């Protein structure tokens, strides 16, 4: 922790309730702070003068939490990326050094014969991107045509699964199977295919249903927790700073207060990642019990959810609903000034 923060905290702890630092500096301690700075090193530390407003006017300080679930899956490749990777892999098939067989298998050993049989059946090291024939009359014909099945991701996945299922015994059966099928049947060399576990779908049930409360949706995206406050606005959970607590402690308190204890969360670091300034309208301010409060400033702390789910039952912040939304969905849910304040602290993906 640097000296500046400690000073800030010391000043904050003296004050009864939280007000914004620049307001306080301008009202009370600016002169002393400036004097202290002057004595230290006037050239190195330059603190610009702040216009002094009337003494009591100030902003309340709120702490907000940007609770996010990081992406679980890799993103979908752009068609150009996919085509480029496929092209490079096929080029690699042509240009890679051949397999160093004689390091792994001594000549004329059973292992060597076995490898020969398998490669004869397999034809190519990489199954999913098509076979490369480097010799013969038509060796030049090594480019994929437009719409070739090898360029589709699903086809590549199927080929890989097929490869995983094959045990390498198929060629053996073929040799004596051609001679007489009855002998092969009697010999009892039946090839068993172990079913290989298929990859899970990238789209989940919650995606299909459009269940925005589930954390199991939009797996390649970062999801953010938005809550509906007393006024019916969607925003990140936030609350007034209380007593001597700092932003990190406040963030942890707000998380438990808003989402319950059934969330395993980590508040990342001690620095806020963004802020939002809200000015009260004039008539609201004059009719409020504290007319000197111009509005509030919310400082957002970053947090990650590891496990669990938000539960708004008995929450202490008067929240009525919650959603887990990706960035562009957040834009649709929140109000425009709020979006302009928060958009740069949300990850693109």
């Amino acid at each position, binding site marked *: 922790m640097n000296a500046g923060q400690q000073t800030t905290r010391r000043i904050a702890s003296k004050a009864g309730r939280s007000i914004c630092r620049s307001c306080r500096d301008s009202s009370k301690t600016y002169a002393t702070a400036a004097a202290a700075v002057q004595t230290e090193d006037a050239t190195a530390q330059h603190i610009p003068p702040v216009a002094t407003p009337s003494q009591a006017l100030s902003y309340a300080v709120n702490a907000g939490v940007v609770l996010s679930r990081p*992406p679980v899956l890799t993103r979908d490749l752009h068609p150009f990326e996919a085509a480029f990777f496929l092209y490079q892999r096929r080029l690699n098939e042509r240009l890679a050094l051949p397999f160093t067989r004689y390091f792994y*298998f001594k000549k004329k050993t059973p292992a060597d014969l076995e490898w020969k049989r398998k490669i004869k059946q397999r034809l190519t090291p990489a199954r999913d991107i098509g076979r490369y024939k480097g010799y013969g009359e038509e060796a030049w014909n090594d480019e994929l045509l437009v719409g070739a099945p090898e360029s589709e991701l699903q086809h590549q996945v199927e080929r890989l699964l097929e490869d995983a299922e094959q045990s390498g015994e198929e060629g053996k059966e073929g040799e004596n199977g051609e001679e007489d099928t009855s002998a092969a049947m009697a010999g009892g060399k039946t090839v068993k295919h172990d079913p290989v576990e298929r990859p899970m779908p990238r789209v989940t049930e919650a995606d299909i249903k459009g269940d925005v409360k589930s954390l199991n949706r939009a797996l390649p995206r970062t999801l953010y927790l938005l809550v509906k406050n007393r006024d019916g606005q969607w925003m990140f959970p936030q609350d007034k700073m209380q007593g001597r607590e700092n932003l990190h402690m406040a963030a942890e308190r707000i998380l438990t207060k808003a989402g319950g204890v059934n969330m395993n969360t980590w508040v*990342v670091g001690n620095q806020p990642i963004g802020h939002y300034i809200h000015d009260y309208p004039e008539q609201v301010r004059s009719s409020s019990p504290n007319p000197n409060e111009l509005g509030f400033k919310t400082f957002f702390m970053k947090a990650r959810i590891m496990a669990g789910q938000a539960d708004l039952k008995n929450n202490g912040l008067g929240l009525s609903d919650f959603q887990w939304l990706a960035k562009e969905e957040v834009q649709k849910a929140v109000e425009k000034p709020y979006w302009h304040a928060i958009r740069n602290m949300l990850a693109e993906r």
Partner: protein
Amino acid sequence: MALRDLSLRTASLFGRNARPAVHAVCPSFCRNASLEAVELETASSLEVPPPPVEAAQNFDPIARSRARRLRKKPLPPSRYQFRPPKYYRGPLHPHQPPPVSDPASRLFQPGPFSLPRLEQTYQTTIAPDLLTLTYQHYPYGFKHPKVTQRLREWTGDSPYFKGRPLRGPRGSSSLRLLTPPRTWRNVPEITKVVVHTMVPEAQENSAHLHVAGMVVQAMTNVRAQTHKSRSNVVSWGLRKDKYVSVTADVEREDTFHFLSKLVDVVLPKIKEWKGVSGTSGDGSGNISFGLTPDQVALFPEIEVNYDSYPPKMIPGCHITVQTSATNDRDALLLLQSIGIPFYGKLKD
């Protein structure tokens, strides 16, 4: 070609004369950029519609070549058999090698082949978190004090101090790297991984070197390099100019594949392993650790055909992760976030 140019030029001259009088008084040798631009073609090649779908579907190169062969009209072979020159003979030689990025080049290396999962995790999750964790806020208008001279001066009344080169820092011969204030531009990232294996037994039996090379190559997907001993060290049994070690410099895409394999497959399988020592690191953001032969054998590429390697020849290795961090604390944080465990007192 020149004739065609000439006719174009004459045509444009006539065209220029047909323009208003202001241009007509301009003498014909007065050519400038704005006049040149008139000759440019306005049509864009992007406006040309792509070939019809049927043309792509009906295109059969094999049938075309067979038909051509039947007609006994083969393509002229020289046009399609380009071979880059083996040696670079200077910029004035007529036979120039193609650029390295051209697949026809002898130096062409294909790749990248994928967008590794670890790289995507770094971009979306790790880097923003590291930025938040290591960011240091300074008030608006704060200027960092400028340190112009980090080396010490010679103070004293000796006449020899005049004009003498400055002294190094206390306790070391070289200056440590400066850590600039953290911004979104300098979040530490992994730049390179070096896998190194030393096999002194290779001086007697070169098979050890071959096996070490194949093991390192299988682990890293990078062609291994061999190194000679630089000097005689009797106590270590080293003799000068004998091949004793193998390294592989893992860069770009391979780095992420290698590290994710290490973190997700190999390290969890090691029994009673404490982790990487927290005091590892060279002071400028590069962190090293070692694996024993048993642990190296846990790599999936080696495990799958473990029996193919000669017994007791699989070597251990040292892995150095090079990061763009300028101190060990940031590098340690990065490696921790990737999933490498550290034990003991963590180096600052």
